[in-house]
């Protein structure tokens, strides 16, 4: 009986010992993925900000600028690309819509970002674009990979349409959560005019023909929850100028927008809650279950060996009964 029990325990120990690494290194990379139909909006604000008033052609201090950023997973497009790519693909149609204090549009930039659902590596396919211009992304955008590492990543900048390193600057605590802090500075760079302008009659071509050029610099900051790779906070110190503007606007350089853009408090809270829930699921696969199974395997093996040893021990000797001599 003991022998049978020890064999059952041994089978269970082998199961646990084999399942632990299987979950971590085989199942997790295949099961953890970004859903293709994700929809997420984020509101960021710069309070106060400097904004070009196109009617007076002067930069003015305004109470706030709002940036409404939407990410929408395009399932039909992701399925179409998956057929050619042979892997799980996510297609995000994104829109960064900027409004002034009166709620009127200041600028908007649509994007299509295509990436691997498991690794977040960019996937190059027709339709990958920024503001209608085809681009070829290198590195990441919006989100870091699952199990983010303490190292620099390449981050795609939609304004310059180029990728540059975003530097890991240390581990911080953000609202009680351990996060990795990343920072990228884009130096003053000439960038294309947005296709959608805030004033009717002014087109990017008209501005380009007048010799105006648009320049931009930013310091980008991200607080990343490393298990899910999700940003729990983001800020940007952003500055945009029109240069070579003397002929048209009387001054060589005009500030179009300047401000410290921060995620709005209600969105920080909402993202934090979502990340905490997803973090638990990922941790189950990469840590909690594999470690529990490892400990269970050791315990079961020890029990199996102990039972086996007991079953092999010789039983107690029969008591010697004194022989009474015949009378």
């Amino acid at each position, binding site marked *: 009986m003991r022998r049978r029990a020890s064999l*059952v325990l041994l*089978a269970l120990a082998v*199961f646990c010992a084999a399942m632990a690494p299987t979950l971590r290194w085989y*199942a997790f990379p*295949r099961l953890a993925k970004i859903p293709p139909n994700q929809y997420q909006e984020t509101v960021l604000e710069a309070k106060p900000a400097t904004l070009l008033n196109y009617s007076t052609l002067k930069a003015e201090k305004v109470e706030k600028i709002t940036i409404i950023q939407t990410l929408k997973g395009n399932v039909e497009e992701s399925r179409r690309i998956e057929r050619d790519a042979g892997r799980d693909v996510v297609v995000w149609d994104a*829109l960064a*819509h900027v409004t002034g204090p009166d*709620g009127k549009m200041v600028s908007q930039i649509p994007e299509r970002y295509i990436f691997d659902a498991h690794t977040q590596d960019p996937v190059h396919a027709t339709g990958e674009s920024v503001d209608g211009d085809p681009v070829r992304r290198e590195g990441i955008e919006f989100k870091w990979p699952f199990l983010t590492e303490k190292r620099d990543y390449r981050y795609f900048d939609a304004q310059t349409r180029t990728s540059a390193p975003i530097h890991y600057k240390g581990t911080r605590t953000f609202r009680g959560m351990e996060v990795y802090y990343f920072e990228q500075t884009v130096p003053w760079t000439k960038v294309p005019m947005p296709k959608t302008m805030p004033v009717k009659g002014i087109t990017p071509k008209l501005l380009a023909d007048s010799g105006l050029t648009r320049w931009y610099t930013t310091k980008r900051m991200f607080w990343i929850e490393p298990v899910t790779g999700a940003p729990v906070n983001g800020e940007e110190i952003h500055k945009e100028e029109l240069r070579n503007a003397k002929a048209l606007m009387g001054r060589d350089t005009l500030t179009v927008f300047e401000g410290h853009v921060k995620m709005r408090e209600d969105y920080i809270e909402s993202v934090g809650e979502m990340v905490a829930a997803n973090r638990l699921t990922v941790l189950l696969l990469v840590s909690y279950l594999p470690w529990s199974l490892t400990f269970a395997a050791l315990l079961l093996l020890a029990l199996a060996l102990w039972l086996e040893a007991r079953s092999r021990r010789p039983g107690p000797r029969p008591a010697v009964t004194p022989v009474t001599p015949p009378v």
Partner: protein
Amino acid sequence: MRALVAAAIGLAPVLLFVLLVSVVDLPPDGPTSPKPLLTADPGPKK
């Protein structure tokens, strides 16, 4: 010999699981959200 059989019995479900993960596709995640790309502040997040 019995111990080897027990180990094989323990390994079998793991191999089955590996096979299952490699062969079976994850359930589909549903269609594209009908919500639009926003061009106005949606207000406070609930």
